[in-house]
């Protein structure tokens, strides 16, 4: 067993005491959004109750306290991802906004009609639609890395796909398949072709040790709410020289150095990209989430999840055999904890409805990856995903609930 003390961790998450339909909540949808530990709630509460004021504006005591907590969180988050400086971490509303920021600032200034962007068929809509919007505006070409029958990226034609391209944008871990992509290798391939690399790290930053320096990528996006933090805040990490060269995104307060009736000059990075009052309290909460994860250690998080995932894959195969199809790699070394599956004859929605009766929360649908679902040839899957507060008991309950669903629909 892994070194995590799950029982102790569960104590830190008030929502896990909740019951649904008279049964203990079994939360298996952390790939969508994770639950929040007391330390994060306390950090946010403490800010509102004791220090709250706007950031970067007042000289009075509590304004300075809040500002330093806010910037302290930025520092903690930047260290968590191995960034060389906190000025490389730009706060956004979420990862989606971070991708849009790159598309609208770096993209608009560096891309011209006919330029190509390479994406993969396993992307979340957040890493597709902003590029489609930009492609329509600038007349760009979008190229797609296909996937293999065992749910990996098919890199056979990578070189020709990247040839002449300006950007490779890909996810480090698929939110549907669980597939872990080789970030340093893909980044190196992009750089060899003269392209920059953007990593959608929404699923990997919460679950795998991350280091942007050894990854050597150019942009990375991620969200607080998938890593024990609150909703409403995410970040773009980018190399400082890229951020320096990029024009601002939104205009307003905070992002300026000076404003006259004639025009404005921009603030230093990262504030140049943070127009308006930010999600102050949420950022502070995110900092506490990072502290919590660091105390556990990402290696232990990964080990725990790998164990649970292996246990779940075995349990599903044992119990349901060929009646249940898993969409994703079976090799634990190449996958995270998101397990997408389908029963031969039961729709994903019906599954999740029946298991909800057992207080089991799983996701049903296209998981914001419709192009991938088309490639897989399925309209929807059911997805279970695990995090630090889950244990094998949760998986047993899931399997039992699936047995009930199977009986119910008589397959």
């Amino acid at each position, binding site marked *: 067993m892994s070194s995590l003390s799950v029982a102790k961790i569960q104590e830190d998450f008030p929502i896990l005491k909740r019951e649904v339909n008279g049964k203990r909540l079994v939360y298996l949808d952390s790939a969508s959004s994770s639950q929040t530990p007391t330390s994060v709630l306390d950090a946010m509460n403490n800010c509102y109750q004791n220090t709250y004021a706007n950031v970067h504006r007042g000289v009075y005591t509590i304004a300075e306290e809040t500002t330093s907590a806010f910037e302290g969180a930025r520092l903690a988050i930047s260290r968590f991802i191995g960034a060389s400086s906190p000025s490389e971490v730009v706060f956004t509303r979420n990862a989606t906004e971070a991708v849009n920021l790159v598309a609208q600032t770096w993209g608009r200034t560096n891309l011209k009609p006919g330029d190509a962007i390479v994406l993969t068929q396993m992307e979340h809509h957040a890493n597709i639609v902003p590029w489609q919007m930009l492609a329509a505006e600038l007349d760009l070409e979008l190229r797609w890395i296909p996937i293999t029958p065992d749910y990996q990226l098919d890199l056979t034609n990578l070189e020709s796909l990247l040839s002449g391209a300006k950007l490779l944008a890909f996810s480090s871990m698929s939110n549907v398949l669980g597939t872990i992509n080789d970030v340093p290798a893909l980044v190196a391939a992009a750089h060899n072709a003269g392209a920059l690399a953007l990593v959608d790290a929404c699923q990997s930053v919460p679950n795998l040790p991350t280091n942007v320096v050894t990854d050597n990528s150019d942009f990375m996006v991620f969200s607080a709410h998938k890593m024990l933090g609150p909703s409403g805040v995410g970040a773009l990490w980018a190399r400082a020289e890229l951020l320096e060269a990029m024009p601002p995104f939104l205009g307003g307060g905070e992002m300026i150095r000076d404003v006259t009736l004639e025009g404005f000059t921009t603030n230093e990075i990262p504030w140049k990209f943070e127009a308006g009052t930010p999600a102050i309290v949420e950022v502070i909460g995110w900092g506490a989430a990072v502290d919590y994860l660091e105390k556990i250690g990402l290696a232990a998080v990964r080990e725990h999840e790998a164990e649970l995932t292996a246990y779940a894959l075995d349990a599903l195969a044992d119990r349901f055999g060929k009646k249940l199809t898993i969409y994703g790699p079976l090799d634990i070394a190449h996958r995270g904890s998101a397990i997408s599956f389908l029963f031969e004859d039961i729709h994903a929605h019906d599954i999740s409805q029946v298991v909800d009766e057992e207080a089991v929360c799983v996701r049903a649908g296209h998981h914001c990856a419709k192009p991938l679902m088309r490639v897989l040839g399925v309209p929807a899957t059911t997805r279970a995903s695990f995090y630090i507060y889950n244990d094998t008991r949760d998986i047993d309950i899931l399997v039992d609930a699936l047995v*009930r669903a199977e009986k119910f629909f008589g397959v």
Partner: protein
Amino acid sequence: MSGLEDLYREIILDHYRAPRNRGTLSVPPAHQVEGFNPLCGDEVVLYLDISDGAITDITTAGQGCSISQASTSMMSNAVKGKSVEESRKIIRAFKALMSVHESHLQGAENGPTEGPVPDDVRLGDLEALQGVVKFPVRIKCATLAWNTLIQGLDETSGGS
């Protein structure tokens, strides 16, 4: 599992397992119309033969959850052979059965068929779908086929 048994009545499961009026009709003369639930990917395709102001034949295709597919099957049974006018009455009555929650969730969905709820329509088996209103996110599944039928009737403007 009383809540569930309310949602998944035996008659619903029966229509799901053995959907009625499955198939296609040649287009033209039949009219083809598709409905899509972008949230969950449920898809309904209807083929309508409309002549002399009546739905002389209807077949269905598509895929989706038990609720959307059972509702499609039951709807096709309910309107097959009925006049367009009678069918619109059944649609109104069915949507009234579902409507409180649907309009609450999505903002009023006033289509051209919106109007006084007929009290002389017997929904029969269709009433089994009433359990869906307790599960607000599934109402869209139940109404998909019906909204698609409305669209088909509107496109053929009452039949020719």
